């Protein structure tokens, strides 16, 4: 035991402080004690990584739109700020290179989905319908898979009235991620429904709630689909599109 620990009433079981450490709930002395312990305890570092990932999830409900001017300030300051070299003992080189080849495709895909719409919107409804966390996570993984697919391509269209529809497609995966934003509220309890269409057939891929102005859906069977369509429907949606309001070729 080091003198530093004895000075305070710190429990010699430093390990139990890892939870508080993951929440940044330690003062400087406790923090040094844990850092010291972590240096010689790979198991503790592994636990810390997991608990930190957990703690980060607590940030999810706090998401808020930053002031628009912040973007220019951050990018401007970054452009004037020199970057640190990689740590000498990094073990991530192999992973980094593997990711490197995918960056262009991912960047192209994400550029389209950037902004207010998060990928996670797509699974809101599945969460609401009581599916398990594992199923929801699987869907998130599929979303990520489409966005990072080497063959990912983007189709985008402006919607009447100022909204936007985007789809990232992977023909290899036969899946796509469609995003619609900026939809105007419809009168009379009507709503929007999303479709994959080919020839005369249309398959529903999502119904928005009345008043919902944006959505992201994971769709499969994109290879056979000729168009992505948005129709206006009575609340709850319809079996076939009543009125295709906008569509784009895939």
């Amino acid at each position, binding site marked *: 035991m080091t003198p530093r620990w004895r000075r305070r009433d710190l*429990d010699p079981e430093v390990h139990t402080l890892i939870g508080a450490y993951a929440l940044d709930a330690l003062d400087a002395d406790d923090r040094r004690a844990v850092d010291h312990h972590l240096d010689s305890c790979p198991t503790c570092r592994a636990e810390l990584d997991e608990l930190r990932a957990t703690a980060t999830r607590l940030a999810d409900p706090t998401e808020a739109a930053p002031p628009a001017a912040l973007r220019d300030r951050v990018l401007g300051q970054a452009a004037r700020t020199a970057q640190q070299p990689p740590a000498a003992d990094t073990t991530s080189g192999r992973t980094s290179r593997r990711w490197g080849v995918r960056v262009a495709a991912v960047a192209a895909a994400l550029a389209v989905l950037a902004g207010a719409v998060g990928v996670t919107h797509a699974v809101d409804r599945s969460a609401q319908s009581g599916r398990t966390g594992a199923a929801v996570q699987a869907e998130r993984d599929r979303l990520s898979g489409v966005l990072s697919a080497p063959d990912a391509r983007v189709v985008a269209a402006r919607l009447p009235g100022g909204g936007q529809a985007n789809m990232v497609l992977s023909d290899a995966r036969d899946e796509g991620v469609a995003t619609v934003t900026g939809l105007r509220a419809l009168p009379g309890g009507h709503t929007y429904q999303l479709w994959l269409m080919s020839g005369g057939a249309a398959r529903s891929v999502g119904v928005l709630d009345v008043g919902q102005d944006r959505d992201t859906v994971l769709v499969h069977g994109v290879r056979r689909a000729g168009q992505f369509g948005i129709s206006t429907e009575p609340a709850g949606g319809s079996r076939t599109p009543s009125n295709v309001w906008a569509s784009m070729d895939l």
Partner: protein
Amino acid sequence: MRDSRPLPRRSPRSDGGDPLGALLVATARGDERAFGELYDQVAGRVYGLALRVVRDPAQAEEVAQEALVEAWRSAARYDPARGTAATWILTLTHRRAVDRVRSAQARTDREHRAGAGEPVAYDDVTDQVAVRLEHQQVRRCLGRLTELQRESVRLAYYGGRTYREVARLLDAPVPTVKARIRDALIRLRDCLEVGR
């Protein structure tokens, strides 16, 4: 009761399943465009977290800017084997936000605004956000904690308090709070199925 059993190791993802990670890796190579896209993906969470902790828009903006520029500066230090890019960036952010509220001046301002030690209703967090999966899951999982666990986590993470301060605010023994925080995170981890 001693509670230092090791937790089962679940490897964080280190493959291409973390699109933000790819942007962060590109950022580490000085790719300003990738950094711009990274900004677009995380700025809402960075700013929102900073705002939740420092409770002042101007200070939250400063904290967010510091954290994001730090992410640019030290992107090469990000190790995908230890967690996702979002976790890495939000950890930077949280640390800075906590440092900010613990500085004496900020604390005075903040307590003036928020009321000293006054717990903040979880609802006023949830009201701010769009309906989304994490929101519902986090709320549901927080609801499964004991009162002491939940309050401890809330005061520590959202309030920027040390566990000793949490113990004082909740009038609970320090070792108990310390243990409850760890128990709570383990329960949350299992409930949220974190650790991939």
